[in-house]
């Protein structure tokens, strides 16, 4: 079963199309454009490095790679202002780096080290950085979408001008909690964008085998919500599309569902042998014609923004950064059994401010 395209994605022009001239992109400085490219490359090299560590058994559990989808997280998060917030599912490394989390802490988290961003308590699927307006990293398919709606509720309640982006996969759209959140967002005009990263598959199930109806974002119509689709391999297009909806959310409290067409080259997780539900040819086709990094690189070369030498340098630096992160993770200590019961209760961790009595923990 092959990947089903989003309703309008096929017809969209990539790279040199209209989206490059959209003000949000046209106004980018040379340095900002290079930074977008650099972020995508850094994410890819970080993940490739993490895969090697996984294969040498330095990392346990699940590892869901974002490789191929980088333009989505980088494009969306590059639009964030002070009061914009992000929440996503377990395929969360790209978003974490896109908001600016430090790769050493991210890699150390994968290694289960105390220097990890969650002190080794969350793992790959549970990255958080509230100081960067990044609220996870959630392991239950669709479970983060009501939380993202709550971030938007809090913004509106506190009369702050901002929006929440709540990311999910194409499989998550069939969770009841997602539809409850859609209804609440539309009913109460909450500034939230529900971003569907449609990579065509939920594990091994293609969109056409899991989702009824013409398109995933179009379901927004049932709630009277705005919706849109976009070609997610082109970072300019991601930015142009999301900018439009983010502005409506921030300024008019209009929520929206945006379906971004994208693709993952690796298996669902590294445990997926990736042999049963799609063809090698399909993967190669995407790699060769729609790779977000390759496409943007070409654009920047054509614009005269970047040189082959700089591309090379960025790549070398990204690899070195990933290696450094792995070295840092390797050298860091594990948490100890004494750490297991820390970070459970605010009150237990702030014993001087504790007001409750009685036992909090049991044995």
């Amino acid at each position, binding site marked *: 079963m092959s990947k089903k395209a989003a309703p309008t994605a096929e017809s969209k022009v990539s790279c040199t199309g209209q989206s490059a001239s959209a003000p949000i992109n046209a106004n980018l400085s040379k340095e900002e454009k290079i930074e977008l490219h650099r972020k995508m490359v850094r994410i890819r090299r970080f993940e490739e490095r993490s895969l090697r560590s996984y294969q040498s058994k330095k990392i346990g559990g699940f590892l869901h790679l974002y490789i191929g989808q980088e333009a989505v997280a980088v494009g969306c998060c590059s639009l964030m202002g002070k009061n914009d917030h992000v929440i996503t599912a377990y395929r969360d490394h790209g978003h974490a780096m896109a908001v600016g989390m430090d790769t050493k802490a991210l890699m150390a988290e994968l290694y289960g080290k105390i220097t990890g961003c969650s002190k080794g308590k969350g793992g790959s699927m549970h990255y*958080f950085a509230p100081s960067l307006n990044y609220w996870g990293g959630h392991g239950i398919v669709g479970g983060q979408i009501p939380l993202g709606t709550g*971030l938007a509720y809090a913004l509106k309640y506190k009369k702050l001008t901002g929006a929440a982006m709540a990311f999910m996969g194409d499989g998550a759209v069939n969770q009841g909690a997602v539809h409850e959140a859609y209804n609440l967002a539309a*009913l109460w005009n909450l500034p939230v964008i529900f971003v569907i990263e449609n990579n065509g598959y939920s594990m091994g199930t293609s969109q056409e085998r899991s989702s009824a109806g013409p398109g995933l974002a179009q379901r927004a119509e049932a709630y009277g919500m705005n919706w849109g689709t976009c070609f997610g391999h082109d970072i300019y297009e991601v930015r142009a599309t999301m900018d439009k909806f983010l502005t409506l959310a921030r300024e008019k409290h209009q929520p929206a569902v945006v379906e971004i067409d994208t693709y993952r080259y690796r298996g669902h997780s590294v445990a997926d042998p990736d042999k049963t539900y799609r063809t090698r040819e399909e993967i190669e086709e995407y790699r060769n014609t729609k790779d977000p990094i390759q496409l943007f690189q070409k654009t920047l070369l054509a614009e005269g923004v970047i040189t082959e030498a700089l591309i090379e340098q960025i790549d070398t630096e990204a690899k070195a950064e990933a290696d450094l992160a792995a070295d840092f993770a390797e050298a860091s200590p594990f948490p100890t059994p004494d750490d297991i019961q820390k970070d459970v209760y605010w009150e237990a961790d702030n014993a001087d401010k504790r*007001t409750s009595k009685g036992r909090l923990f*049991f044995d």
Partner: protein
Amino acid sequence: MAVLTYREAIRAALSEELTRDENVVLMGEEVAQFHGAYKVSEGLLEKFGPDRIVDTPISEAGFIGMGVGASMLGVRPVMELMFWSFYSVAFDQILNNAANVRYMSGGLINCPIVIRGPANGGTNVGATHSHTPENVLANHPGVKVIVPATAADAKGLLKSAIRDNDPCFFLENTILYGEKGEVSDDPELLIPLGLADVKRKGTDLTIVTYGRCVLHSLAAADILEKEHDVSVEVVDLRTIRPLDIDTVLASVKKTHRVLIVEEQKPFASVGSQLAYMIQREAFDELDGPIHRLATIDAPAIYSPPVEVEQLPNPQRVLKAALAAVE
């Protein structure tokens, strides 16, 4: 001091905390215009307006999850479940998201949410509406679980829960809503979570209980005193987690006999945990096995006269207490 019903005491706690802190909001099905399915929130919409007292659609997963997300950004939502029984459709939001987010973020994120509503049987509404999930909730480290028995406790504990920085689950009782008691009107009078209360002093038997079973136990204790010359101490836990085991153990040291009374299905109940802890920490103080009276182990029966017998009631407590002191 004023005499208030349990319902009015909860309303007073809400009203005082809504006044004290503008980040507190009350949300749930029918809490605003309808004044609450059990009229707990009557008058609050008029007093605080629709931004603070919010009617939600029937979407427990959606609105509780929304409250969890809002609490991460500093809102202090009090979410009403029309019945705690409906927690099952929001289980993931309550026990994956609220309970775990602090831990999984390595302590970076707090979730100061209160989820409250009635959790009891005895109203002939059948198995779907009669769940008492305090044991299920308390099984999740990271959360606090409160089950008040009296109007004064309901007020003081709810105020503490609203000011608490951890997720607090507050389990009320529809049959207690009309019960009256003396309640302080001091807005700074809080009852700390995790503090049990000896509701009656005695020397021959300790009844450890909480919620509506406190009332049954006190009624049975009167009869035991008058007709059987048995002096019963009634320890009301008030909070299930954190748990004030010290007050329980102090009482056991005095009476040497224990009966646990709970409106819980017996398997892996709050009482199971208590019995384990008492035997582990006061084995030498016990003059006999720990006894327990629970709900008869079946889904809640509808049939009104029979449901009374399925739950603990004063007569069942009396019988169990006599067996425990035999």
